[in-house]
């Protein structure tokens, strides 16, 4: 199981309606991107992290496992702003780019934490069937649900194939590595289509008419939660603008 998916199934906000969590998390995400990074990104990041580790009950270790790689991308992605091209010398360190690089890193980190607040509290199996209400065609949500259903089985298969190849020295040289990787690609293709064929047969035997209906657990939308989220988002916007005014 992927760490983010595991967190999404085991956190304290799991029973909440996905719409409530989307309103709060995506609201914070919009704030992270749209508000001035200083102090907006700091406020949004702090609020998202506090909600994630506090009320939502995601363990710090779980959050770090998910965040470490994308945070590395954010850091590496900010470095080019410290380099200028053209003139003499043609490529050089540009200290004037430091404020922009820091702003970018802060904004991206705050946005990442906001995304995590949604992704680590809401399994995709809760989100996908409800996308139809937002106007996404049923056929598209059904294909997405099928992808979600199959990808964990395929990831397990790849893991098993990789372990078997590694224990037979399948990654000893470049040529054996390429041979092993192509076998992995071939194996997942064959397994994916084999599974689709078996699903097709199973559904045909059960009178498949073209619609894959799944039971969606009914959950009431908590008005207090939505109201508190709206107040919190308003406070983040107001706090950012007020602090910005104070900072001059």
């Amino acid at each position: 199981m992927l760490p983010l998916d595991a967190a999404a199934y085991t956190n304290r906000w799991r029973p909440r309606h996905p719409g409530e969590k989307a309103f709060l998390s995506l609201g914070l995400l919009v704030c992270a991107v749209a508000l001035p990074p200083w102090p907006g990104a700091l406020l949004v990041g702090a609020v998202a992290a506090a909600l994630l580790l506090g009320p939502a009950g995601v363990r710090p270790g779980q959050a770090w496992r998910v965040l470490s790689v994308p945070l590395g991308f954010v850091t590496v992605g900010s470095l080019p702003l410290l380099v200028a091209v053209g003139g003499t010398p043609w490529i050089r360190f540009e200290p004037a780019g430091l404020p922009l690089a820091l702003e970018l890193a802060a904004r991206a980190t705050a946005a990442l934490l906001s995304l995590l607040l949604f992704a680590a509290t809401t399994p995709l199996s809760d989100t996908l069937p409800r996308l139809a209400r937002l106007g996404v065609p049923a056929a598209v949500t059904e294909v997405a649900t099928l992808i979600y259903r199959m990808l964990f089985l395929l990831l397990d298969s790849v893991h098993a194939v990789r372990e078997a190849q590694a224990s037979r020295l399948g990654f000893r040289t470049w040529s054996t590595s390429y041979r092993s990787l192509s076998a992995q690609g071939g194996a997942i293709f064959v397994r994916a289509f084999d599974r689709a064929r078996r699903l097709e047969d199973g559904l045909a035997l059960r009178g498949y008419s073209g619609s894959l209906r799944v039971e969606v657990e009914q959950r009431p939308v908590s008005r207090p939660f939505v109201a508190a989220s709206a107040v919190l988002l308003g406070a983040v916007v107001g706090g950012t603008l007020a602090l910005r005014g104070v900072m001059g």
Partner: protein
Amino acid sequence: MHIAEGYLPPLHAVAWTVAAAPFVVHGARAVVRQLRTDPESKLLLGAAGAFSFVLSALKIPSVTGSCSHPTGTGLGAVLFRPPVMALLGTIVLFFQATLLAHGGLTTLGANAFSMAVAGPWVAYGVYRLARRLGGGLALGVFLAAALGDLATYCVTSVQLALAFPDAASGVLGAVVKFGSIFAITQIPLAISEGLLTVLIVRLLTRVSPAELTRLGLLRPAPGKEIAA
């Protein structure tokens, strides 16, 4: 490389979403039409999407000794065609954002434009051209995968350059800057992805010819055509 969550300014994020939307909507319409006439293909599309997701999670060796991941756009475009890839690629990018925190929701439009639209269309165009000019399946697949990968990274460089123009030389200088940074890792990776994709397709022609025929990559054997 995915553009990380929050990396693009709001206007750029919206503009790239608007740019990618017609292709994704066109892909969704094509899929809905296909499913109306052939409901069973829904399961195959699910398999194709899951395959694309897992393919992009394979670790390929790179020259620096580290590992990187194939984009899978070339193989996806050749197997499933660009309109379908626009939709499947966007779904896969949405899954990567919400399951792996790679990419993001505000950058979904920009990433979809580079990886689900530009990459697959370039790959498919190159594949068709190579086959029309008499190139074999292996050459067509190699060029599609390698150039599809490179096209994805060129578009990403332009997206980043437009968002963050160079202080001294503007957008053009920034395209050179981001493009040069990517070129160090991406040209060897594009060649790696091309070679890997050829090996995968060669393997599939041996172990799964029926599926490749169904997807239109191989011509049906004359005997089987009559039998069908």
